[in-house]
Structures are given as structure tokens and as C-alpha cells.
């Protein structure tokens, strides 16, 4: 539907604390920077705590009507709970990305999956778990080709605390590398 506008829906799903919301925010803002339209939305249980958390971004060349899309062109699954809840919301032919250390896909699952140990990369390679979402963003950016790398990088710099931009860009680059590789 509305696909005449090249509309794409992306969901980041995981638990609170994984930087899910921020990822969507950066992705959407980067799309804007590319001259597209974008709408980002999120859902979580309790405000501050763990538990299921999603961040959805719709990117389009035309007007965006759906505020809460329920099927996704790209689905990033970063926790087992979100896998159980959303695995089947990826559109046929869509892209599925999973955090390989945290998600066990059902045995009978059919379809292409892009897997990345984002948490491990952030924690062990980069020494800061907090940049997990940047690894994911880079991975997604490379795989999806939806948004220009430059736009994503510029948006990241604007959105992270001063002084942490280098670390975040490193994480992003690492993710991109894995996605492109």
C-alpha cells in the first residue's frame, strides 16, 4: 500500500536500555536529511524500565498516513522477547536483522536473516556496551541502502553527547563494515 511513494517501514525491536528509540530517531532524521519524508514512532511498557521496546520509522517520498504501521520492510530484532512478538511482522521479501547472541529464531523459521553480534562487538571490541545501537545502525544502513551513509553519520554526530562522537562513529563504521561485507 502507498508503495507508489517508495514508502518503507522499519522496526527496531528489543528491550529498554538498548538505545532502540534513539536508533529510530537517528534513522528518521537521516532520511529527512536525504530529502525524504519520515515519521518515527515508538512503543514501550513502563517509561524507564526494561521490557519490550520498539521504534518504527517510515521513510517515504510522499505523504505518510500510517502512524503505527503493522508490517515492516525491515525488521531489526534485538531480543528474544521481541523475536517472539514480532518475527512475523516482516513483509514478504522484507529484510530481517537479528542480534545473533540474544535471539534464537524458531527452528522452523524460513527466510533470509542477517545476523550480527552487536552487543558483543560494542562491549568487547569497543569497550562500551552503550554503542550497541550504533553498530546496529551501521549494519542496517549498509544492508538497506535506504539512507546515505553521510546523512547517518552527520545525524549521529548531532545526536550523541558531546565528546562521544568518535566512539559512536567507530561503532557505526564497524556495523557498516559487517553489513557491507
Amino acid at each position, binding site marked *: 500500500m502507498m508503495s507508489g511513494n517508495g514508502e518503507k517501514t522499519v522496526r527496531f525491536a528489543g*528491550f529498554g536500555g*538498548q538505545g532502540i528509540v534513539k536508533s529510530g530517531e537517528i534513522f528518521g532524521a537521516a532520511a529527512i536529511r536525504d530529502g525524504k519524508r519520515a515519521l518515527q514512532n515508538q512503543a514501550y511498557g513502563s517509561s524507564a524500565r526494561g521490557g519490550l521496546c520498539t521504534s518504527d520509522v517510515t521513510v517515504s517520498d510522499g505523504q505518510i498516513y500510517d502512524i503505527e504501521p503493522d508490517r515492516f520492510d525491515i525488521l531489526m530484532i534485538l531480543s*528474544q522477547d521481541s523475536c517472539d512478538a514480532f518475527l512475523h511482522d516482516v513483509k514478504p521479501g522484507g529484510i530481517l536483522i537479528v542480534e545473533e*547472541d*540474544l535471539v534464537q529464531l524458531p527452528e522452523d523459521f524460513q527466510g533470509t536473516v542477517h545476523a550480527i553480534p552487536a*552487543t558483543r562487538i560494542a*562491549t568487547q571490541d569497543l569497550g562500551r556496551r552503550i554503542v550497541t545501537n550504533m553498530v546496529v545502525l551501521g549494519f542496517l544502513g549498509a544492508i538497506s541502502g535506504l539512507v546515505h551513509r553521510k546523512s547517518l553519520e552527520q545525524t549521529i554526530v548531532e545526536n550523541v553527547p558531546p565528546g562521544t562522537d568518535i566512539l559512536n562513529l567507530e561503532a557505526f563504521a564497524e556495523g557498516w563494515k559487517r553489513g557491507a561485507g
Partner: protein
Amino acid sequence: MRHFQVHVDPELCDGCAVCIFFCKPAVFRLSPELSRRGVFPAVPEEPEACTGCTLCELGCPQLAIAVNEGGSEGGAS
């Protein structure tokens, strides 16, 4: 000297390291392995050092720890 078994329930532990802070004899360390829950859980690595002070048991925010007197020495759950 009294002996204690120290159990950590890996289903509950979320790797907060509170037990590590409480434990004077440094019984615990965090596992380097990411659990399915996405955390690095605590493991009682040197249970034999445990003095049975129960501070870890009381302080653990997930009620994940049980410290029992006696029994086998390898108290890791």
C-alpha cells in the same frame, strides 16, 4: 571453618554486580559470556571464600542468590 554454598539463579541474574560490591572475600565475578537475556551474569567463582555473611543474598535485587551452609563446596549453580 564453616562452609557455604553460593547459588546464583541465571534465570534471574541481570549482572548488576551488586553482589560483587557487597562481597568482601570476592566470591563473585561477572561471566564474560553474554546470556540469552542479554546480560553478563554473576558467577560465584570462589565459593570456598564465602564467610556466610549473607550480604549478597540480601542485597541482590533479583533475589537470585542463595547462600546455604554446608553441602558440597562447588556452590556454583
